[in-house]
């Protein structure tokens, strides 16, 4: 059981190595904090300087225009403020106080009142027919802000439809079809009787809650409004696991340095002379880093939960195998690299390069969905990617696909075994 002694010794040394602890524990926390501050999410604090700051001029002042503004204010990541006049909007746009502006015209309500679903959808072409101009809404943006204007156009149109469609649908015989089409409620029968829905609408001052589905949507929107203080903030559901995975693999250079230190101190010779097996030696040198890696991941998820209100998913137990398999593959890679490098400079050059490159390829720096398809495929050659896939499934799905997570964990384990086997072989070979 010589490996236990080596494990205990290395854990003692690791705990005393403040530089390693900083890299493994404090650095990822610092990174997440910095990004949290950048996005205005730390400790539920919400920064006014959001991604988009929209000014809204409501020249109509109707119930529907008020609903549109409410819906826009509920969109996460957009700071929607009311502005009194078009002149003020133009001034704030030129002063860069606003990213874009929405002007709801005086004729808005009159246009909405006569709007039917046929005006909104071109059923024969299966496409949206309506434009903002049709309902007297204009979107203004800074010069050279075409892309922003396009995005805001779509958002405002969506909010407008959400606000006006229920009333419009009620006026139309094709109400249920449109609502299904818009809301994707395929289970609803197309010819479902609607006799009692009118009373729903009447009894509820908010037309958005006229149907059960809309009611749910509105409820979700309300929740999203304050989601920075609620568990499950989508930013951290991606950010925390991404940095947890990336920093798990920062063990690789630290393991490399540990082996080099052992070699340079001459203690590796002493260990090899001692009556312990090569397996004891490999296990003893690997387990401490596995323990540190597990502790690191646990600390980061706890950190994410306490500081950022991230959710551990609907089935938190699923995180255990993912953390374990990620740590195993990281230590496997660490073992292989440790047996390949000979100097501290090699660790700095090769191991750090490898770790950062693999993190970049796999999607640790940005959501994997943002990667081009070809890169997403290429990234499957890295353990990081499989770990991210598993975390994504466990943390963001209401009903995580356990089979998909199991598959990712299996691949991670395979990485771990393969890398460690190469490492052991190299270590055995290097004895001579």
């Amino acid at each position, binding site marked *: 059981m*010589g490996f236990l*002694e*080596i494990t*205990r*010794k290395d854990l*003692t*040394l690791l705990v*005393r*190595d403040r530089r390693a602890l900083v890299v493994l524990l404090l650095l990822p926390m610092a990174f997440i904090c910095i990004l949290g501050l950048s996005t205005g999410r730390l400790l539920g604090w919400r920064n006014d300087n959001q991604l988009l700051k929209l000014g809204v001029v409501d020249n109509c002042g109707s119930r529907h225009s008020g609903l549109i503004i409410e819906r826009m204010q509920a969109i996460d990541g957009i700071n929607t403020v009311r502005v009194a006049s078009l002149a003020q909007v133009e001034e704030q746009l030129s002063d860069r106080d606003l990213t874009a502006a929405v002007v709801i015209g005086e004729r808005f309500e009159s246009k909405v009142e006569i709007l039917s679903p046929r005006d909104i959808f071109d059923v024969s072409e299966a496409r949206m027919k309506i434009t903002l101009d049709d309902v007297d809404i204009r979107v203004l943006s800074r010069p050279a802000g075409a892309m922003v204007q396009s995005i805001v156009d779509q958002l405002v149109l969506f909010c407008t439809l959400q606000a006006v469609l229920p009333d419009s649908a009620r006026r139309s015989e094709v109400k249920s079809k449109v609502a299904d089409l818009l809301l994707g409620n395929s289970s609803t029968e197309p010819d479902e009787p609607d006799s009692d829905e009118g009373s729903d609408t009447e009894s509820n001052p908010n037309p958005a809650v006229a149907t059960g589905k809309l009611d749910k949507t509105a409820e979700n929107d309300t929740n999203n409004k304050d989601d920075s203080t609620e568990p499950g903030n989508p930013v951290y559901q991606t950010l925390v696991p991404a940095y947890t995975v990336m920093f798990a693999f920062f063990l690789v250079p630290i393991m490399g340095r540990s082996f080099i230190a052992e070699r340079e*101190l*001459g*203690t590796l*010779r*002493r*260990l*090899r*002379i*001692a*009556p*312990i097996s090569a397996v004891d030696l490999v296990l003893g040198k690997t387990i401490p880093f596995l323990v540190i890696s597990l502790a690191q991941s646990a600390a980061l998820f706890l950190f994410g939960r306490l500081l950022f209100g991230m959710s551990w998913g609907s089935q938190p137990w699923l995180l255990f195998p993912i953390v374990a398999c990620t740590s195993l593959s990281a230590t496997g890679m660490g073992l292989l690299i440790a047996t390949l490098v000979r100097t501290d400079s090699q660790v700095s050059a090769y191991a750090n390069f490898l770790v950062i490159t693999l993190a970049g390829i796999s999607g640790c720096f940005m959501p994997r969905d943002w990667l081009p398809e070809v890169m997403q495929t290429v990234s499957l050659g890295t353990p990081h990617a499989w770990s991210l896939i598993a975390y994504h499934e466990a943390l963001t799905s209401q009903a995580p696909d356990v089979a998909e997570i199991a598959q990712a964990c299996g691949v991670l384990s395979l990485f771990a075994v393969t890398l460690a086997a190469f490492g052991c072989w190299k270590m055995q070979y290097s*004895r*001579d």
Partner: protein
Amino acid sequence: MNLLEVDRIRKSFNGHVAVNDLSFEIRAGEVLGLLGPNGAGKTTTMSIIAGLLTPDDGQLRYRDEAITRTSKSLQSELGVVPQDLAIYPDLTAHENLTFFGRLYGLRGQQLDQRIKFALDRSGLTANAARLAKTFSGGMKRRLNFACGLLHEPKLLMLDEPTVGVDPQSRAYLLDCVRQLRDDGVTVLYASHYMEEVEDISDRVVIIDHGQLVTSGTQEELLGKLPIDIRLRFTGDALPLTASLSAIEGVAAVEPPTQNATTDFMTVIRTKVTASENADLSGLLGEIVNVATKRNCSVLSVTTNDSNLERLFLELTGRRLRD
């Protein structure tokens, strides 16, 4: 009785032969000095014995039993004090000893006793709780030494254990080796310091270019050295040198070197060895007579000491080694 036999071992690295057909034995309870210039193959030989390297050819026998690199019989009874320090600077002396003791299976009271013994033997008891990195060079050497003898090895290999230590620590370590020998521990001691080996070794093995040059007790080896006569004189040097070379019993005469404006010095290599215990007075008389005939005045005649360093240089040459 031989504790360890090294039998015709050979080891090469990328075509370079580091150890070539080397054989010697270590007898139980002795201190065997292993001498050789840089690159002679000492460390390779010790690495093979320690199980770090597998010989290309040849065999090791421990207690008459053939052993391989992974044999446990030698591993558990072997203590090694490597040439370079092999301790953890971020562990205390006590933690270092505890770790290495546990690796050799020591536990509980036995471990405590052995740590106490090792600390005491290495003079580090008062500093047991200090981190090794705060130690002086001599203290680190002593801790390095203590780690090697913690598990009561039957065979202790020391590879230049006194390199870079102060005279006090060196004397202390050598005293420890003597005490260990008195306790029955067999010691293989490799060093460049001839006086150390001379001081503590029962027998000496000299190797060069990976091969055995000679081995035996110090008396046996030094006895093989020819006696050199150091002659200081005044007069005409060249004719005298030629005449001295012709004397029977003289093997060679070094070209004279001028000591002062009139004094010369030469070394006469005789055919007489130290072990022959021969009377040199006849030969010395003849040398003085020849000098007088050549109108040279002999100012002094001395004989060189026979010591390991001289033997070593005789056998391995004076050429610088890389």
